[in-house]
Structures are given as C-alpha cells and as structure tokens.
C-alpha cells in the first residue's frame, strides 16, 4: 500500500477540505443561476451564460490574477470582506476554496441546468394546489427531482476543484498546510531535482482520488435515479 509522508497527508487533507468547501459554497449560487438560466428569459441572459462559462475558457492564471485584483485586500470585494468580517483570502485556504468554487462553478451550473429544465412544471402546479408553500415545493418536489443533476454537477465540480492549479497558485500561493493542495504539492515536488519519487506518489494519489470520485458519482447517481422512479436498476 502507499506509504504517505506527512507532507503528502497534509496536501491530501487540504485538497479535500478546499474542494469540499468550494463545492458547498458554490451550491446555492449555482442553483440560483442554473434556475434563472433554465426558467427565465430576460435581456442579457446570454451574457450571464457567458460569464458563468468564463472560468472554463479563460487561462487559469489569468483567472487567478483577476481574483487577486477583485478579492485581494485592496480589491473592491476583498476590501469589503476584510472590513466586515476580517476575512483575508490571499494566502489562506479559504481563498483556495473560493478558487475551487469558481473553477467548478460552470460545471455545476451546466449539470444543474439540465436537470432543472427537465422538471415537469405541472408537478409544481399540482403541489401548489395541494397547499404546498414555495419552500415546501422546493424541498419536497424540486430538490428530489433535480438531485441527479445536483449530484453529477457537485461531483464534477469537486473533481475540477481537486485538480485546480493555475488560478490557485496565482491567487493564494503555494503554502504547505494552508494552500498547497495536491496539484501544487506535485508541482513543487517536480521542481526540485530528486523530487520525482514524491511526485510519483502524489500522482498515484491523485489517480486514486479521481477513480473514487468517479465511482461515487456513478453509484450515487444510480441510487438517486432508482429512488426517483422506483425501478431496480
């Protein structure tokens, strides 16, 4: 079995913490945006769609730099965060989580949007005639029906976050224990002559993580689909 050094454990647990936090934070926003894109039409909708997909197409380092400008301590949003909550994002794992959230966002929204578009609005109408308030409709009807897309999107975003490198290193730096996620640890290992062995272990670890995430996505997806239709698959 793989024997991991302390540095590797730290990188692994940090990666998981950052990616998980990123996905959880992006979920509500992702849901709202996906809902709006799926169900509403308004002038400028295509611009919103484009904005959502920016992290997919802009070079990650550029994204990192953009985040520095916006969310750094002197940036418009960053200054506010610092004043109101004393929250600084650069050089912190919270900042890394924000990067993870942003890079996974388009994948989350895409998957969610498909699920939302597939919801039968007639079911929502039926629920309302049965006395369900909008929030009850959301919890009992909408959420279960979009859960396949929710799961697929979350796991996709999670995978993307685990592999995120360029924007992370540019925005929050490469600080072991704080921002040095697996990809960054791998990069550092390969930068030093003689770091290949650690590099190989980190690569193996990354592959294992990817496979586990994929398997989880598949199993969860099936379980959810089964629950939705009552079919045994």
């Amino acid at each position, binding site marked *: 079995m793989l024997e991991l050094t302390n540095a590797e454990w730290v990188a692994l647990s940090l990666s998981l913490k950052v990616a998980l936090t990123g996905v959880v934070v992006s979920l509500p926003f992702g849901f709202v945006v996906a809902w709006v894109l799926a169900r509403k039409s308004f002038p400028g909708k295509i611009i919103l769609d484009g904005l959502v997909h920016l992290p997919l197409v802009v070079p990650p380092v550029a994204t990192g730099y953009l985040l520095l400008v916006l969310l750094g301590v002197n940036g418009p949003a960053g200054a506010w965060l610092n004043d109101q909550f004393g929250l600084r994002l650069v050089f912190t794992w919270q900042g890394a989580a924000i990067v993870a959230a942003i890079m996974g966002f388009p994948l989350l929204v895409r998957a969610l949007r498909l699920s939302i578009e597939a919801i039968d609005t*007639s079911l929502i*109408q039926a629920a*309302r*005639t049965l006395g369900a308030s909008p929030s009850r409709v959301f919890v009992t009807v909408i959420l279960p029906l979009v859960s396949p897309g929710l799961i697929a999107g979350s796991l996709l975003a999670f995978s993307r976050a685990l592999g995120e490198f360029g924007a992370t290193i540019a925005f929050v730096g490469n600080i072991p224990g704080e921002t040095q996620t697996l990809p960054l640890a791998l990069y550092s290992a390969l930068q030093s002559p003689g770091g290949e062995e650690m590099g190989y272990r980190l690569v193996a670890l990354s592959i294992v993580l990817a496979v586990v995430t994929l398997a989880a996505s598949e199993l969860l997806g099936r379980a959810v689909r089964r629950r939705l*239709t*009552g079919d045994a698959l």
Partner: protein
Amino acid sequence: MSSVLSISVQKQEGTFTLDAEFEASAGVTGIIGPSGAGKSMLLSTIAGLAKPDNGSIRLDRHALFDTAQNINLSPEHRELGMVFQDARLFPHMTVKSNLTFSRRQTRAALSTVEEIVDLLDIGSLLSRRPHHLSGGEKQRVAIGRALLSSPAALLMDEPLASLDLARRREIMPFLERLRHRFDLPILYVSHNLDETLRLADSVIVMDQGNILARGGVEQTLSRIDVQSLVLGGATTNDHPEPVTIVAATIGKRSDDGLFSIETPWGTLTAPNITGRYGDQVRLRIRARDLVLSTTEPTGLSIRNVIAGEVGIMTEAGSAQVDVLVRPSHDSNAQPVWARITKRAATELDLQPGHPIWALLKAVVLTSDIELEALR
C-alpha cells in the same frame, strides 16, 4: 356546512377571450363544451394557476381573487383540490406519500386516509410507486390525494380523458361514490357527454369562452343548440342526430326479465338495464330509435309508447326530418326527438299540433351508457 363557489372572470389570451360567470354549490357541476371552449382555462383561473384580467372568485364570503380589491391568492392558499387529466403524481414518492402530501389543515379534514383509501379501493397500491400504476389507478390516487388536502371544493379537469374505455368504466363508480359521499362543490370539466350525464347534478355549457347554456342536466343537454355543439361534428355532419336526455328511476324487475323504468313519460319497460331497484339514471335516447305513428299502435312488438302531439319539425338534410314530440299527458314533461324520412313525414302529413304516438323499442333502452369520446 358546504361551500359555494362564486366565479366571475374575464381573461384574454391572444384572440381568445374567456368570459364566464356562475355559482357552484354542493354537488357536481359539469362543465362541458368542445375543445378550445376555455374550460381548462376557466379551471386554471379558479385554481390560481392562471390570472384573470378581471373579475372575482369567491369561496363563500372569502375572496380568492378580486381585481377591485387587488386580491390574488396563490394556489396553495385557495383551499381548492384539483385533479388533472394527467394525474401528476409525484414520481419519487410512494402512493401513500402522494396521498398524504398535503399539509393543509385550514378546515376540518373531509375524511380519514383509511376512508379515502377504502372509497377508492387503492389499499393494495399504497407502497407502490406511480411508475408502476395503470392509468386508472393513477387517477384514483390523484383523486384521493386531492380529497385529502382538505379542500372546500374540488376541481376536476377532464380526469378521464387520457384513459381508455375500459379504465373509464372502471373508475366511474368511484366518481359516483365521491359525489354521494362528500358534500362539496365539484366542478367537473369534460368534453364527454356521457361522463357528464352520469355524474353531473347541473351543467354549464361553454363555447368559445362564453357560457352558452346552464341549468339542469336533462333540460340543458336536450337543447338542440347544445347538442350540436357537444355532440355533432360541424364539419362532418351539419345535422347531428338529436338526443333526448331524460332522468329515470329503475323499478322492479319482472319474472320475465323486464325492468320497469319510471320516466317523465310514464313507465317504460326494457330488458337491458344494468342497475338496481331505486337507482337514478339518465337515459339517452337517440332520435333514430323512435318510430312515429299517426294512429294508436296495436299489434306491434314495441311496448313503449309515448302519446303526444307534434311540436317542432326541422329538416335534417335532404331526406330526413327531426320531429319533436310533446307528451300529451303532461305538458311540462320533457319532449322527445324522433328522426324520420322526409318522405314519411310528407306521406303521413305531419304537422305541428297533430296527435302522434312515439314508439320506443324496449331492447334499445339501456342505462349502461357507452362512454365513448365525442367525434
């Protein structure tokens, strides 16, 4: 204490204008009309799923919608149960969860879950998923679910339209039970005459967004203008065969297999009656089933004779004529339509006011109404 629904709505959508005003009290109000008459739109506005441009919708004194007072309650606050044509059961819940979905408790529950399950005979389905139910079963569950939402009134939008004939026959008794068991206004939208005949206590006929006729079932549905709307295909047949709807009670069955039926025209006999002594049914008598005689008939096999005089005569194409016969024993009794050849009418020299006997073959009479779709 049952409720009264007072509706007055106007709504324009493109070139179509809905303008309807009526009241519905306890019992089944059938809303019937051709496709596109605005029946579903009407129901949507009442349920709160569509917003009228103008008008008011009241449940007893309580305003659900009122443009004057700027009130527009959302569907969940209207206390109206709705059954849709496509059942709309929640696929991710069991039948039991679907049934008990509603948490609304603003008024006393109509009934317990057990009673509803019993009434609709869905006990064996409780742990199943909608996915595994037949169309008829789904609709029964949908009805149960609506009933269990403590509704002050029930709205049913063509609930049987997507079922085949066999399923419809199967579900009819349950609907009839509904109507007897619960004391609330039920608006039953359909474009099928037979469903309306079996279930409705009163009827509203709609055409092109307006109410064409309203009132008791027999009188309203026996009107020619209503019938041509509801029965006839205007494009295929300009002279749809008139149908006489008459309320009747099933009487005793004799030893030789004949039922006696009490009608406004007296007692008729028929062998092919399904039902029991005392059942109230509506008979649907096609104009072609009647034979006319200018003299009192003797020596004929026909047992059912209605004595009357000729009322109206209208042409029905180049070779046919429809004759309205008014029963002579009671001038207020419902008249009956007969369709004969023009030649016969001429040869018999039929004129309004002439005495006439209408003969109805007993074997033709049936209360087992074929539930076939119009057109």
